[in-house]
């Protein structure tokens, strides 16, 4: 029996690529337009309940908070830093002082756990300086690892706008 060769006349099926490429490019443009580089962000946690008026005398073992005073110049920039009245030229020195206070004690009841810092800031002070102060107080970097210092941080009552 003779087998007929049907291959010669068969039409080659072509897949239409144009619509797919159109859609793919539209998708690509969409993703490029909506792409945003997100910066890494972190938080400083502060627990500040609305303080109720204290009753009776304060307990003897209550450690008074360290009061950090941040003064601003007319432009809102940092003019002076003081901790319980002692002046510091910059945040680096404040950080070094906090490290000496806190020491290496990590146990329960240590200064690291009990100490509390109160930030008393001028109304006009730029917020960036508050974050610098919180950074100086709350930790330090050792070999790219965060070593926590004082975690209890609160704000003094707000001052009147000056």
């Amino acid at each position, binding site marked *: 029996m003779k087998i007929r060769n049907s291959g010669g006349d068969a039409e080659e099926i072509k897949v239409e690529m144009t619509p797919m490429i159109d859609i793919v490019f539209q998708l690509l443009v969409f993703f490029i337009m909506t792409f945003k580089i997100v910066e890494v962000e*972190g938080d400083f946690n502060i627990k500040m309940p609305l303080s109720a008026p204290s009753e009776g005398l304060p307990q003897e073992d209550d450690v008074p908070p360290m009061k950090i005073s941040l003064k601003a110049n007319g432009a809102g920039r940092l003019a002076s830093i003081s901790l319980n009245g002692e002046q510091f030229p910059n945040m680096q020195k404040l950080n070094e002082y906090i490290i000496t206070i806190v020491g290496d004690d990590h146990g329960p009841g240590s200064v690291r756990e009990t100490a509390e810092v109160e930030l008393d800031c001028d109304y006009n002070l730029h917020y960036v300086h508050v974050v610098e102060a919180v950074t100086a107080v709350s930790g330090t970097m050792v070999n790219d690892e965060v070593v926590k210092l004082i975690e209890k941080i609160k704000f003094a009552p707000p001052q009147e706008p000056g």
Partner: protein
Amino acid sequence: MKIQKKKGSGVHEGDLTPMIDMTFQLIAFFMVLINLSDAEQNQAIKLPESTLAKPPEQPFEYSITIHVTDDGNAILNGQEIPISQLGPYLNSEKTAIVSTNKSIADTTVIIRGDVRAKTGHIQELIKICQDNSFEVFALRAKEKVRYGK
């Protein structure tokens, strides 16, 4: 005169396969990196930098994000409001939290203050939040990358 038709001199089709491969790879790249959950970010706010600002190990169970602009306004849920008028908005947030059986005391108020925002405005914001029973705050800062360290 009869013009002879040249065979095979028609349309030259380029090989599209490498281009399509690359395009799909680009799409895959952007799809993976696209951040659709950036509702708590606001490009108008320039956050202060801190070397200690590291992303939290676990997200807050429930949080409200409030942005503070350099001109003293708060942005809550995309709405810019003067800080002094924030009370009713926080109250409605409080009602929404209570209705979902969450505790107000456990709700974290994330404060994203601009570098040039006045500290007094941040403190006013904290005071208004405290008046509405919120007591846990997170001051948000941008991670400061230390090069060559």
